[in-house]
């Protein structure tokens, strides 16, 4: 894979020099990495070439990361290690910094303090190893592109985006064809994306991620505004991604989903309040604390029901079991 081809043109790269893995050399107050993450041992060996996760080297590492927007602190002292093959849900109340966390991991937001590593390098250098599906609102859905065009965008790491006479090769066409097929988009390949419904637009983005063949997938609220069929398909896709040894991080406010379908859950509210297996996270006390009274949990017959009450300013949504 040549995913790193365009990665080196990042405009910032200011965070610091590329080092192999994290080497907290006294400047960072966080000390050494926590061993708490499952199989997230100390980084060692070279940075993974071509983005393929190797051994136990973490895919993403954050050390003492703090993000501020003006005077507002969005994330505070986040330390985190994510090994290859992870399937992680990030949950937390509105404004907890879920999107910010994903964007910081990708280097789209620069932290005020702390170190971020993507495959052992500053994110601007390894971004193309990560496929990202942003929240729907950040994309111009009326833009004149066809479904196939969007999926082909996933191949720019392979084709290149800047230069004369760039044409997709047979491998690119094949990847796009497979991705379209996998998501049932083949009949609509020539359609304008503006003609599709929300769920099908999400499928187009998923197909683009498939075509990207990236070892890491970050999704920001992918379950919003999608139909049941797409939801099911998305969950199956995420499972198969992880089965192939790739890593998946999903920011979601769907607590039910986080509990049922993910192996690891991060409970976030500016800080990481808890990090572990779903059954460890879904404790009434923890949730109450994180959602500051927005969550009501009921326990009966060994099952816990979770109710989320959002403030009246946002759309109320409740999750129950």
């Amino acid at each position, binding site marked *: 894979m040549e995913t790193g081809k365009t990665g080196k043109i990042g*405009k910032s790269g200011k965070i610091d020099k590329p080092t192999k893995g994290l080497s907290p050399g006294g400047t960072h107050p966080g000390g050494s990495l926590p061993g708490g993450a499952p199989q997230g041992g100390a980084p060692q060996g070279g940075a993974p070439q071509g983005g393929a996760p190797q051994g136990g080297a973490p895919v993403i590492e954050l050390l003492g990361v703090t993000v501020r927007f003006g005077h507002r602190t969005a994330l505070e002292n986040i330390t985190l290690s994510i090994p290859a093959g992870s399937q992680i849900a990030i949950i937390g109340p509105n404004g907890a910094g879920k999107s910010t966390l994903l964007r910081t991991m990708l280097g789209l937001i620069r932290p005020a303090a702390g170190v971020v590593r993507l495959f052992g390098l500053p994110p601007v250098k390894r971004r*193309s190893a990560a496929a990202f599906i*942003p929240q729907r609102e950040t994309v*111009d859905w009326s*833009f*004149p592109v066809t479904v196939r065009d969007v999926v082909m*965008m996933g191949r*720019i790491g392979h084709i290149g985006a*800047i230069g004369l006479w760039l044409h997709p090769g047979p491998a690119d066409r094949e990847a796009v064809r497979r991705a379209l097929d996998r998501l049932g988009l083949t009949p609509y390949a020539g359609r304008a994306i503006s003609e599709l419904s929300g769920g099908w637009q999400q499928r187009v983005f998923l197909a683009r991620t498939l075509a990207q063949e990236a070892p890491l997938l970050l999704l920001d609220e992918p379950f919003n505004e999608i139909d049941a069929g797409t939801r099911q398909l998305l969950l199956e896709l995420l499972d198969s991604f992880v089965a192939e040894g790739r890593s998946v991080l999903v920011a979601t406010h769907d607590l039910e989903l986080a509990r049922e379908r993910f192996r690891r859950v991060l409970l976030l509210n500016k800080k990481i309040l808890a990090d572990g297996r779903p059954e460890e996270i879904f404790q009434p006390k923890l949730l109450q604390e994180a959602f500051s009274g927005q969550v009501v949990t009921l326990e009966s017959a060994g099952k816990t029901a979770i109710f989320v009450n959002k403030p009246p300013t946002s759309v109320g949504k409740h999750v129950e079991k």
Partner: protein
Amino acid sequence: MQEMIDLISEPLSYEFMRRAFLAAILAGGVASLIGTFVVLRGMAFMGDALSHAVLPGIAVAHLTRHSIYAGAFLAGLITTMGIGYLSRHRRLSEDTAIGIFFTGMFALGIVIISTMQSYSIDLVHFLFGNVLAVTSDDLWLMSGAAFLILLAFALFGRAWVIYSFDPAFAETSGLPVGLLHYGLMILISLAIVVAMQTVGVVMVLAMLVTPPATARLLAGRVPAIMVLSFIFSTLAAVLGLYSSYYMNIASGAAIVLWATIIFMPVFIFAPKVKLFVQQYHQLRQRCAGKVG
């Protein structure tokens, strides 16, 4: 029949008219290609701002006997950077920054021009353009700019499409989004400078926006929009110059008016045309399905 041919060929017998046709088509073509991105990214206000903000550059260049193109381009760059800088402030949105900067620049331009002796003549010339006064030096400059812009499109076109559609994806894919953003701004400035001579700073926006908007109504992909946009702008330029010649009306305004006149029927009939094209494609697909 002969009369018809005479009607068409008569203006072309004049050197200044031949140059005017070339200039109008070149300028319109350049503006309509860049304008595709102006329309797709909803930057019409930015385009308007840039076109007005070049005025002080032109005025200063005129006074100091430098190339007015260089002056205008420089002023465009300053404006781009200035707006970018202002809008980084948390309490100023981008359109506010644009509003402040461009009116300021425009006023500065008028102040400078008002110190000239031939105040009203020069001002009118800058504001409304004069395609009939294009020199062959101007034409060479315009061709150079057109070449630069085409080259930039060949190099960055795909990246601009991706960046305009999904900026977060563009950035995570490692595209140099800062370079893409400012590169586009620079090209818009360049297109404005080129088109300014034909329609003037006040109406340059029409060349940037109207033909691509017309094309957008009909085409579903960026390359097709660009081609159609170029066709519409050329049509407007040619019709505008003929009307100007025979009806003795202002050439720049005539070109802009024709662009608008072309837009309107397309706006009204585009849904029907689109439906027709869709049905045609479906039919073709069905036929292909049978064969395959």
